[in-house]
């Protein structure tokens, strides 16, 4: 027989347990301590399948300091040794035809020999600070340093990705080889310090999640996961150093690496994780830094902290966040100079936009509606972006007044709006972010033919536009937001931004930020860019 007393006792026990669990001390602090040596050593003994050729950058980023200036200025510094144009002309002169273009210059291999270089991998630094890597073993007799118009030399690498064709090469640097024989038993003090950049002590920074990240050495094995991993990758690829250190990434869909294929010749060597990897799947790549998007430390970050894998959060949803993200990446990649260049690229353009819209009063602003347009099996949905999202920020920075903030104020995600509400807003301009599987021209034609849509002021006045994309959309929290913002400005205030040539901006963007030359941009990017769908 079951007694009342034992019943009571059990209930009390239960409640006691519940309160005990509630009173448990908060989760142990998750300070990412840092024994990368241990992890690295582990990687060695485990022979993890994803091991990359262990190289590490020797980022001596100081400008070339020619010591001897004779009759001519040196055009190129080869591992500290300056070479003048006369020195180059003293080598055998060759001409090579690549993809219909003819180049004249000297063989890359001859220059390396003249510089007395024995390294296996070189960093090619351009006059604008862009740099890229080249394996000496990959060079052939067809690899040239071709003379260019400005009296310098351009790198010509037939067969290699155009991102490696560094224009106006000023310096060749050596990549220090890591001691691959390091034994597993060595303690963390034996960790080969990756270098001069750490002379100032460990890296310490605050990221978009507000956490303080401390790193004792430059991360050498970076993995990108989380939501929108391709957008984080696009940010990372702006740093040439990242290509050496990226070991793997999560891929959400078949198309999410389309841009990476263009800018990353080594994509095939990287491990692609399926969607939603857990902490152990990530740990299997032996990362010493995981990068993901976020504004708070999430459970994944906490799990990774349990096994001492540090996480850097980036966000990119506002220009301020973006600049912080770029600076943080510059710090963890040991290349703050590159971060400065990128920031200055964005800042110049932001300043120009601010200048362009200066003096427009709040009530004079063009009333703008930005909509995401999706059509799944004939089920059309149009949605407005969240208040804090980059799409809204793009409209605001370009001087538009987002009508969707007037009444509804969605906090997260795309919120569906109906045509009735759109008619009430009756905006001056409508910009459609069209789902990538749809044909923008066809979508616009359909809407214009629709009696309901064609009654809207924006449609009557031919102010309905398709938002441009290249391989990826310009509206997203991706480095491309600056292009989207500039383009919006030219469409909202054509008079004020008459001098802003978007085609030229596209060349600049992919040229300066990703090191692509004109030929590559023409081949890969331009065919997909439709600036004027309306």
């Amino acid at each position: 027989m079951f007694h009342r007393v034992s019943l009571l006792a059990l209930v009390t026990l239960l409640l006691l347990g519940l309160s005990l669990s509630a009173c448990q001390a908060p989760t142990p602090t998750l300070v990412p301590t840092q024994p990368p040596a241990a992890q690295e050593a582990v990687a060695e003994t485990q022979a993890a399948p994803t091991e990359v050729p262990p190289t590490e950058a020797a980022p001596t980023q100081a400008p070339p300091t020619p010591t001897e200036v004779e009759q001519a200025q040196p055009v190129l510094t080869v591992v500290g040794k300056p070479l003048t144009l006369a020195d180059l002309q003293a080598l055998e002169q060759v001409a090579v035809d690549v993809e219909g273009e003819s180049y004249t210059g000297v063989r890359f291999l001859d220059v390396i020999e003249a510089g007395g270089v024995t390294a296996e991998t070189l960093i090619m630094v351009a006059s604008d600070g862009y740099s890229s890597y080249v394996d000496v073993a990959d060079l052939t007799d067809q690899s040239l340093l071709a003379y260019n118009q400005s009296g310098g030399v351009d790198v010509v690498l037939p067969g290699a990705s155009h991102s490696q064709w560094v224009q106006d090469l000023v310096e060749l640097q050596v990549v220090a080889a890591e001691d691959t024989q390091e034994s597993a038993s060595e303690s963390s003090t034996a960790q080969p310090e990756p270098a001069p950049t750490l002379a100032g002590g460990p890296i310490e920074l605050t990221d978009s999640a507000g956490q303080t990240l401390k790193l004792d050495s430059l991360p050498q094995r970076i993995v990108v996961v989380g939501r929108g991993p391709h957008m984080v990758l696009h940010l990372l690829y702006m740093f040439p150093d990242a290509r050496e250190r990226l070991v793997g990434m999560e891929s959400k869909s078949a198309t999410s690496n389309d841009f990476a294929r263009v800018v990353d010749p080594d994509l095939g060597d990287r491990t692609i994780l399926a969607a939603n990897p857990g902490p152990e799947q990530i740990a299997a790549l032996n990362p010493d830094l995981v990068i993901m998007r976020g504004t708070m430390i999430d459970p994944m970050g906490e799990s990774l902290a349990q096994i001492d894998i540090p996480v850097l959060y980036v966000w990119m949803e506002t220009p301020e966040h973006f600049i912080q993200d770029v600076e943080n990446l510059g710090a963890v990649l040991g290349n703050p100079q590159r971060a400065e260049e990128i920031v200055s690229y964005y800042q110049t353009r932001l300043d120009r936009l601010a200048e362009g819209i200066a003096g427009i009063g709040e009530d004079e602003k063009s009333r703008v509606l930005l909509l995401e347009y999706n059509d799944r099996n004939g089920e059309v949905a149009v949605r407005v972006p969240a208040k804090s999202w980059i799409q809204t920020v793009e409209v605001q920075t370009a001087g538009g007044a987002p009508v969707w903030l007037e009444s509804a104020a969605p906090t997260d995600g795309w919120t569906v709006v109906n045509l009735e509400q759109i008619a009430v807003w009756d905006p001056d301009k409508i910009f459609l972010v069209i789902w990538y599987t749809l044909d923008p021209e066809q979508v616009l034609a359909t809407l214009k033919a629709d009696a309901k849509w064609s009654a809207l002021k924006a449609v009557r006045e031919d102010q309905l536009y398709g938002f441009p994309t290249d391989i990826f959309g310009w509206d997203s929290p991706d480095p491309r937001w600056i292009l989207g913002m500039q383009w919006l400005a030219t469409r909202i205030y054509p008079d004020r931004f008459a001098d802003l040539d978007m085609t030229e901006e596209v060349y600049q963007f992919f040229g300066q930020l990703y090191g692509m030359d004109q030929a590559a941009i023409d081949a890969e990017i331009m065919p997909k860019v439709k600036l004027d769908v309306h």
Partner: protein
Amino acid sequence: MSTSRIAPRRGITEAVHGAPRWLGWLVGLAALALLVSLFLGRYPGPYLTRPSALIEDELGRRIVLELRLPRILAAFMLGAVLSASGLVFQMIFRNPLVESGFLGVSQGAAFGASLAIVALGGAAATVQLCAAGFAFLGLAASYTISQRIRYGDWVLRLVLAGIAISAIYSAGTSVLKYLADPLKHLPDITFWLLGGLWAITWPDVLHVLPVVLPSLAVLYLMRWRLNLLSLQDETAFSLGAAPGRERLVLLIAAVASTAVLVSKAGLVGWIGLIVPHIVRRLFGADAQYALPGVMLVGGLFALLCDNVARTLLTGEIPLGILTSFAGAVFFLGLLTRAESVRR
């Protein structure tokens, strides 16, 4: 006289004779599965981890001890608790179609956790307490309302009340999502609602243990009464049970353990519905054996599903997909096979 006489369909001889031996085997199998699971994973290579590798490999050792072990325990507990509460609900409500996601319990826990994240700072302990609190509240509300409904028998009334309470809670959760700060709170809620066991670490396990162990102990010790409670109230009363009070104790134990686990693992469906049916097929309906049976089978089932979820691909497979798919297929197979044997 044994209470197992009430076991329907399977006769007493059939169910009881084999059951203790079966239980013994299950305990052994569970212990073996827990052990083997420790050596399944993605690090350093996919699938089996050589034990020798762990001796030299510090990171590997830490992954096994600090990620895999707590996760394995959590998976087993999750399965055991969901199945045991599923059985308790099915027996008490004499309704074979109910589980923990019933009575506003899961939705109450979801609402409570969201509320804690948005309004109360979102510390781990607050989230848990709040989730458990609202799960209880959901149970209490369903229970009270069911007694005020003026038609149908009490099983039907309770089902109706549970559905209504769940709907109110899920609407409340949606409102909280809409109000949540998109940068500070929303990612947390979204994660929480999606669930999965990949984020489980030792602190999570230590948080749930003080609730789960006593709850399972209560259910285990009261399994004899469960048989009586599954009868009509009048019959149970005449057999010496105090149906109202005992029913409440069992429900509290089931709800408390479910709420705390769901607040760590998110909403994982179907285990609580399917496992009790499978076990009744194997052991008969007598709770004396069926209850330990569902705990073991449920634990094993969740553990196996989670092993697949974390090991098969380079990305996690959502646990809910695996549990419902594997569970339903196995269940269908068992049903049809049993039918053919009987013929």
